[in-house]
C-alpha cells in the first residue's frame, strides 16, 4: 500500500489548479511568458463556477453579471460589443469557452483530474499529486511552480441555526430554477448580491417572501443616468475624487433615485458607502415597494414549522434558502503554506503571492467592486512575469521581492471594511490594479 509512486519531473513546467476563468487566464498568460503548463481540472469542461453543468457551480437559471461588460471582460479578449451591458451567465460560459479555444488552452488541461496534494520539496519546486476523479491510482509530478485557481465560490458556508425545522432548508448553491420557488412561502437569509437576487426572484415566483438581513447595506441600482452604474462610478474614480466626496455623491444619488429604504423596514446601513462590496440590485426596492418582499431581521432559531426572528416575531415559511456565501477551501494545501489563520483566512501578498513560498501563487481570490476577469488577468501576468524574472535574473527578482515586502497592505486592500468573511478578499479595483501595475513596472524587462 505504501509504495512510493515514481515522481515524474516536469522540470521548468508549472502547474495550474482549476480551469475556470482564473485558471484559464493563468494558463494563457504563463504560456505567453514561455512556460510549459499542466492544468488540472476536476470537471470535464472549462468554465468553473460559470459552467452550470458543473456540480459545484453556484449559478442559477437567471444569473446575470452584476458588473457591466467593459469592466468584466479580459483586457486582451473583449466580449462581443453587441452583447448586453450585463450578459447572462450562459454568455459568460460561451465567452470562457471561446477564450480557451482561441488561445488553444484545451491541450494543456487534464480534465477529470483532481489535485490531492501539493507539497514543497525545496528549491522552490513542488510535488503535485493528482488522481482521476473516476478513481484509480494517483500520480506525482514535480513542478517549478504552482498557481492555485480553484475558485472561492463553491464550498457553501452554512449558518448554524439552532433547533429543528420541518420545512426544506437549502443553500443558495442548490438553487437552480424558479420552479423551486413557485407558489411557496420562502424565507431568504442573506443580504449579499445572491440573497438580494434570490429575494427578487422569489418575489416574482413565490407566494410569500421574507428576506432576512443582519445589517443594512447600500443597494446600488444597475443603471444610473441611463448608464451601467459601475461605468458612472468609474468616471468618479478617473477624476480621482476623494473618497469622502464620492461617498457624499453616492448618498445624494441614491436618495434622489432609489430613495430611503428604511421606510420599508430595512435597517439603515451601518457603514459608509464604498466600505463594503456593493450590492448591485435595482429590483429589490421595487418589490419592497410592492409589498412582495417583507424584510425581516436575523434568524434566531428554528422551531418545528416556524422560524423565530431576533425581534421576537415568528414566521412559517416552507422553504428556507441560505444565501450565506462560500468558504475559501484549499484541501490540497497545508494551511501554513498560504499563512492561513485560525478562521481559515489565507494571508497572501496582493491576495495572490504566498509570503514564504515564491513559487506558489493563488489567482482570483478577490472580491472587487468590478468584474474579476480583468483583475485576474493582470494578477496572472504579474505571476508569470515574477516566475520568469526568478529564472532569468534572480538578483533583480530578489530586489523586487524586497521592495514588495515593504509595500503596505493598505495601499492595495480596503482601508476599512466590514469585518466578515464575505469581505476578506475585498479590493477596490482601481487601487488594486494600480498596485499590480506598479509591480509589473518593477518587473519590466530591463
Amino acid at each position, binding site marked *: 500500500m505504501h509504495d512510493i509512486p515514481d515522481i515524474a519531473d516536469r522540470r521548468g513546467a508549472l502547474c495550474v489548479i482549476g480551469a475556470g476563468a482564473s485558471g484559464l487566464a493563468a494558463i494563457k498568460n504563463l504560456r505567453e511568458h514561455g512556460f510549459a503548463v499542466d492544468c488540472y481540472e476536476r470537471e470535464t469542461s472549462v468554465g468553473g463556477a460559470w459552467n452550470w453543468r458543473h456540480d459545484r457551480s453556484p449559478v442559477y437559471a437567471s444569473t446575470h453579471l452584476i458588473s457591466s461588460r467593459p469592466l468584466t471582460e479580459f483586457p486582451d479578449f473583449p466580449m*462581443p460589443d453587441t452583447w448586453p451591458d450585463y450578459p447572462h451567465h450562459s454568455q459568460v460560459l460561451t465567452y470562457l469557452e471561446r477564450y480557451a*479555444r*482561441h488561445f488553444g488552452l484545451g491541450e494543456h488541461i487534464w480534465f477529470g483530474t483532481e489535485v490531492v496534494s501539493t507539497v514543497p520539496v525545496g528549491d522552490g519546486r513542488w510535488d503535485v499529486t493528482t488522481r482521476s476523479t473516476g478513481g484509480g491510482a494517483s500520480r506525482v509530478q514535480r513542478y517549478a511552480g504552482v498557481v492555485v485557481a480553484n475558485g472561492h465560490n463553491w464550498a457553501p458556508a452554512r449558518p448554524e441555526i439552532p433547533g429543528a425545522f420541518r420545512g426544506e432548508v437549502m443553500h443558495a448553491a442548490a438553487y437552480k430554477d424558479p420552479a423551486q420557488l413557485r407558489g411557496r412561502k420562502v424565507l431568504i437569509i442573506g443580504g449579499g448580491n445572491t440573497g438580494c437576487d434570490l429575494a427578487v426572484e422569489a418575489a416574482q415566483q413565490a407566494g410569500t417572501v421574507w428576506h432576512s438581513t443582519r445589517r443594512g447595506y447600500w443597494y446600488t441600482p444597475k443603471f444610473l443616468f441611463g448608464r451601467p452604474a459601475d461605468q458612472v462610478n468609474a468616471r468618479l474614480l478617473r477624476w480621482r475624487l476623494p473618497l469622502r466626496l464620492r461617498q457624499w455623491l453616492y448618498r445624494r444619488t441614491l436618495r434622489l433615485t432609489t430613495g430611503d429604504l428604511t421606510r420599508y423596514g430595512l435597517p439603515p446601513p451601518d457603514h459608509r458607502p464604498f466600505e463594503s462590496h456593493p450590492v448591485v440590485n435595482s429590483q429589490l426596492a421595487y418589490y419592497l415597494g410592492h409589498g412582495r418582499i417583507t424584510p425581516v431581521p436575523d434568524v434566531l432559531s428554528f422551531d418545528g414549522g416556524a422560524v423565530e426572528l431576533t425581534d421576537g416575531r415568528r414566521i412559517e415559511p416552507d422553504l428556507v434558502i441560505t444565501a450565506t456565501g462560500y468558504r475559501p477551501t484549499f484541501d490540497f494545501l497545508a494551511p501554513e503554506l498560504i499563512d492561513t489563520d485560525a478562521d481559515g483566512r489565507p494571508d497572501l501578498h496582493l491576495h495572490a503571492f504566498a509570503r514564504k513560498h515564491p513559487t506558489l501563487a493563488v489567482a482570483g481570490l478577490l472580491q472587487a467592486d468590478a468584474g474579476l476577469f480583468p483583475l485576474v488577468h493582470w494578477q496572472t501576468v504579474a505571476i508569470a512575469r515574477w516566475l520568469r524574472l526568478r529564472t532569468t535574473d534572480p538578483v533583480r527578482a530578489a530586489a523586487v521581492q524586497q521592495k514588495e515586502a515593504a509595500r503596505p497592505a493598505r495601499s492595495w486592500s480596503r482601508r476599512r471594511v466590514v469585518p466578515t468573511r464575505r469581505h476578506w478578499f475585498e479590493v477596490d479595483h482601481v487601487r488594486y490594479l494600480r498596485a499590480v501595475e506598479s509591480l509589473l513596472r518593477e518587473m*519590466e524587462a530591463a
Partner: protein
Amino acid sequence: MNPEVLRFDDWTSPVPPVQREVLSRLPEGGGEQPPVLFVPGLGHGAWAFEAHWLGHTAERGFPAYALTPRERGDLRAHVHDVIQVAAGLPRQTVLVGHGTGALVVAYALGRYPARAAVLSAPVLDGWAAFAAALLANPFGTLPALVGGRLRVSRRQLFSAALPAAEADAHRARVVARPRRELITHGRPPKPVGDPPTLVIGTPDDRVVPRTSLDRTAVRYGGAPLLFPGMGHDLMLDAGWAEPIEAILDWLTKELSGTAA
C-alpha cells in the same frame, strides 16, 4: 512601455457597437492554420484585399478575412473594430495592416496578443507621410488640412506597370478624410504577447518615405522586406503576388518555428 492596465476610456464610455463589413475567403476543408485578418488604410476598405490577397491567402491554406473599419471612426474606434473582429475568430489571429491600417494594427497589438503581425507600407510616422503627400500632390493634399477630402494621384498609389484604367478604377473607390490624430498620435504601445512582426514596403513608395519605413522596421526588431518598383498599394499594384507570397512564406516559417 507598460501595458495599459487602467482603461478608464473603456470603462466610462465604451466604443459603441456598429455593423462591420468583414469579407472572407476560407480554404477548402478548414485546416490548422491561424486566421489572417487584413486591415486597410485610409480611404480603402476590405475591397482592396478582396481584389487579390484574400483569395491568394486562402489558397495557401489560411482562413483570410478583411475588415472595413467604421466610417468616420477615430483611431480608438478602429482599434476596437480590429480587436473585436480578431477576438471573434476561432483562433489566435494574424494581423496584417496596410498604410494607416498598419498604425491601427500597431495599436491593436498593444491590447490583443496576435499570433503574428505584418505592417505593410506602414504609416506610423504621420508627419513624414504628410510631407511626402504635400510634395507629391500638393493640390490633392491641401484640402484635407481644412477637413476636406484627400485626393490621391495615380502615381501616389501605383507604379507605372499597373494599367491606367485599372489604377483609376481603384482610385475612384478611395474616399479619404484623414483625421488629425494620424499625425498627432503618440508612440504605439509595445505589443502584448511578443508576436513575431514583419515590416514590408517599397523603396518607391510616395506615401511612406524610405527613412520612415526603416525606422518602423527597427522598432519592430528588423529590416524591412522591400519590393522595389511597386507603388504604395502593394495589394493592388501590378506585382501584388510577390509581397503576399513573401508574407505567407514568412508566416509559415514563423509558425513552424514556434510549434516545435
